[in-house]
């Protein structure tokens, strides 16, 4: 332990080699200079000037990195101890650094803009190879912590995450401009960066999916990455797991059921048309609620629309049989009809066999957006479908749609919106602990991402539009909104409380309910009724079933 007094210091400095000291040799220390020495470090045996503390800290970091990265040099250095005077820390570190192959000078600053929390990347950075030591050095310049490796690593990850987002946007912008070679180089950079980010959760996971989707767009062209590549059976399985893993579909089903139940109050002959039957998970709850309603259950008919099954299994019929068995157990008179159609616009109203005496409910869970084209025109599929829905004169039409604007013509805007939306959705999925539901739910969402990002034209079916636009569209097509009511809200809140995650929120939006994660709405449920201005309730003669 070196005592803090001039004689000891003088003695040390005279014993040191010529390479260490930065002062003129031999240095009789002036009294003023003694006062600059940092007291705490001096107590530990090191003399470092207070003004140099920051520099010494940085250099120690660099030295540590350099040692870690080239252990061969280090072991050679370890045997040469007499050259260095460790108590004069500044010069000791400098001389050690000069021994290493890595140049201690790092490229220019890696500045964090505190306002936008985005990294401003200098040209010097982009031209050098992004190898490990320099990244460490750059981060440590900002960190100023001597022994806090964990903070360094976390900061590096956060930084990389932010860089990933930045690069994703830039790549998307290149694609919009048509500059595919530059976009390809960005893609490669991003894939490299992805290896350094935690892809198990957080921004890394979502970014990975978006990078894949961009890759598809660049290399396979638009229309190559269509989600219709998966079979209907696969889609059903993924949908089921998405149902289990997070509350969005449950919220949709329960809210729609509540609205339908209230609309059917007092009616004895009811007919529900489901635009996408899947496994029919929505309907057991409705059947049970109808069974228990005061006044007894009505005669319930369910018409389920779904894609045709290719391998001979009649999946619609199987689901219908299951639902019928359930209805029989609870004593509800039930009839099921399946309509197999690969696209919703292929369905004609006569296929549904609506009896004029019964009350009709139309239920569309995330189906209407598939009918949209990119430019609104008179006879787009959605207009056709909405008009024949109107001709059925339904008592209620329940519409649940994703609350996002993924149908913008500009690619970059769409990409940005999708990035925000799906990041939020993946965040909410983190709370789910049930496997394999979580993993398969992610694949389900990933297919949506791929479709939004890498497809165009008729291949892009995930054309989500926000609630405000649906309101305009449906009002223009002759529907008036029905308020969902407090029962639906209470039920939705209760349902959410059952999910262990704290971040979900139900909001009421002018009669519609939205479910979101941390006040970002992700899915919106609304109910509509056809305006009965037309005198006839029967459909026009030419839409009748051809005899």
């Amino acid at each position: 332990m070196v005592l803090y007094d001039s004689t000891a210091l003088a003695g040390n400095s005279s014993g040191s080699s010529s390479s260490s000291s930065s002062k003129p040799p031999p240095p009789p220390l002036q009294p003023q200079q003694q006062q600059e020495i940092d007291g705490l470090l001096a107590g530990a045996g090191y003399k470092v000037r207070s003004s140099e503390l920051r520099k010494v800290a940085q250099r120690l970091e660099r030295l540590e990195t350099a040692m870690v990265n080239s252990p061969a040099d280090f072991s050679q250095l370890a045997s040469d101890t007499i050259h260095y005077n460790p108590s004069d820390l500044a010069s000791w570190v400098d001389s050690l650094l000069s021994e290493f192959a890595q140049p201690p000078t790092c490229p220019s600053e890696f500045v964090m803009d505190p306002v936008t929390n985005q990294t401003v990347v200098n040209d010097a950075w982009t031209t050098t190879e992004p190898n490990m030591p320099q990244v460490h050095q750059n981060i440590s310049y900002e960190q100023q912590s001597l022994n806090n490796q964990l903070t360094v690593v976390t900061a590096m990850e956060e930084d990389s995450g932010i860089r990933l987002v930045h690069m994703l946007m830039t790549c998307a912008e290149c694609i919009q401009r048509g500059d595919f070679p530059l976009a390809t180089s960005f893609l490669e950079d991003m894939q490299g960066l992805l290896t350094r980010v935690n892809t198990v959760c957080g921004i890394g996971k979502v970014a990975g999916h978006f990078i894949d989707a961009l890759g598809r767009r660049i290399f396979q062209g638009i229309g190559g990455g269509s989600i219709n590549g998966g079979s209907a059976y696969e889609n059903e399985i993924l949908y089921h797991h998405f149902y289990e893993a997070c509350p969005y579909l449950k919220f949709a089903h329960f809210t729609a059921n509540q609205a339908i139940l209230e609309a059917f109050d007092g009616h004895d002959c009811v007919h529900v048309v489901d635009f996408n039957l899947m496994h029919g998970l929505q309907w057991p709850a409705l059947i049970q609620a109808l069974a228990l309603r005061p006044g007894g259950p009505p005669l319930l008919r369910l018409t389920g629309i779904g894609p045709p099954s290719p391998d001979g299994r009649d999946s619609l019929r199987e689901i219908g049989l299951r639902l019928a068995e359930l209805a029989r157990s609870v004593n509800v008179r039930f009839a099921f009809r399946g309509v197999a159609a690969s696209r919703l616009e292929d369905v004609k109203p006569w296929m549904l066999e609506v009896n004029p005496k019964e009350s009709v409910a139309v239920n569309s869970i995330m189906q209407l957006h598939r009918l949209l084209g990119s430019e609104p025109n008179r006879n787009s599929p959605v207009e056709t479908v909405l008009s024949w829905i109107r001709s059925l004169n339904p008592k209620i039409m329940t519409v649940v749609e994703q609350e996002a604007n993924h149908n913008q013509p500009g690619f970059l805007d769409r990409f940005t919106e999708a990035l925000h939306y799906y990041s939020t959705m993946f965040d909410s999925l983190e709370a789910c602990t049930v496997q394999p539901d979580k993993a398969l739910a992610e694949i389900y969402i990933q297919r949506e991402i791929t479709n939004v990002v890498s497809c165009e034209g008729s291949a892009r079916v995930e054309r989500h539009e926000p609630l405000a636009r649906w309101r305009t569209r449906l009002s223009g097509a002759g529907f008036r909104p029905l308020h969902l009511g407090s029962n639906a809200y209470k039920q939705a809140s209760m349902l959410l409380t059952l999910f262990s995650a704290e971040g979900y929120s139900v909001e009421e939006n002018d009669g519609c309910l939205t479910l979101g994660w941390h006040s970002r709405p992700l899915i919106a449920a609304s109910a509509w009724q056809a305006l009965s201005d037309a005198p006839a309730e029967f459909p026009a003669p030419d839409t009748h079933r051809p005899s």
Partner: protein
Amino acid sequence: MVQSHHRGCHRQGNHETVGESKEKRPKFFINDHVDILIEILKRLDCRSLCVAASVCRLWCTIARNDSLWENLCFRHASPPPTSVRSVVLALGGYKRLYMGCVRPVRRRLGRARRASWAGDEVQLSLSLFCVDYYERLGGSNSNGRLVGESSPSSSLMFLCKPVNV
């Protein structure tokens, strides 16, 4: 209050076996009076009922009876739902409803809600129970997962905390 009833019965039972069997006092053995026993067991909470089921064979049979669980499910519901019985029995019985739906729902909601909400809780539990029954109907061929007799199906997994057994 009910538990002291328990102890009272047990004590009297023990008294019989320990000593004084020479005394010809009128004995009261609860197992001879099944209707009283049922009345008592009806008022127990879930945990006590499960404990009671391991006392003896008679108690076990009674505790497994669905009507006791019916009481447990709807005890706090105001107003008590009518005509639910046939539906619940068709969907799997009250014990299953309680263990699978009502108990976790009530536990999760119980901190914020009071008895006045119990009606909505019951309705929600019934709906979830129905979805559960429907998935059990699908059996193992729908998603490749075996659905056991007493284990909840996948749709109720979100209600189960991994710690609880």
